[in-house]
């Protein structure tokens, strides 16, 4: 069965520092992978997605993610975080029957 693991429930970084949020997936075929962000009291917004091709994917707001098949990972990165990046981040994998399976999320805190 498809699954997504985000091992870090909370991450705290200082403003201006680099960021990496971890995501591991389990899927038998070529995965379709997503990162979504949820700001407090808001719905989810897509940051980026991977279907095929270049394994380094660029997204909105300066985020990127790298697909590594050998590690079953799709980690999200940003070279320099801003206070407005504080939010909940969800990794997801596209499954059968048009479902998207979400990870449990990582809450990002930014120190001034």
């Amino acid at each position, binding site marked *: 069965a498809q699954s997504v693991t985000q091992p870090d429930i909370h991450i705290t970084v200082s403003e201006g520092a680099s960021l990496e949020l971890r995501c591991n997936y389990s899927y038998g075929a070529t995965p379709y992978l997503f990162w979504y962000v949820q700001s407090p009291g808001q719905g989810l917004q*897509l940051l980026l997605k991977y279907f095929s091709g270049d394994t380094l994917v660029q997204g909105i707001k300066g985020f990127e993610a790298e697909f590594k098949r050998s590690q079953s990972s799709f980690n999200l990165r940003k070279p320099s975080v801003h206070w407005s990046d504080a939010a909940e981040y969800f990794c997801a994998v596209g499954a059968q029957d*048009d*479902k998207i399976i979400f990870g449990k999320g990582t809450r990002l805190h930014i120190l001034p």
Partner: protein
Amino acid sequence: DTAVSQTPKYLVTQMGNDKSIKCEQNLGHDTMYWYKQDSKKFLKIMFSYNNKELIINETVPNRFSPKSPDKAHLNLHINSLELGDSAVYFCASSPTLLGGGPYNEQFFGPGTRLTVL
């Protein structure tokens, strides 16, 4: 121009009541979804509809009944509300996916926070 809208944004009600949440999308998408996000932020799909037809029903109690009057609307009716139904409910939509092909982005509404007292 709101792409996916939900009403109401907040809903507070007593146990045993029946309530509805409405969702509308103006993106021209064929597929719509309902998700439940619990207090620990875990997001789980409940239903999906494609062109008014039920596609996914994820072992949700039959007190929950989705209704899609047309492909731009997917409403969620909940009977006999229970304390455990308290959560944030998200509606989402995406282009048609049936028949294979890449999985497309799902566009989410702002959510409806349901509190059952």
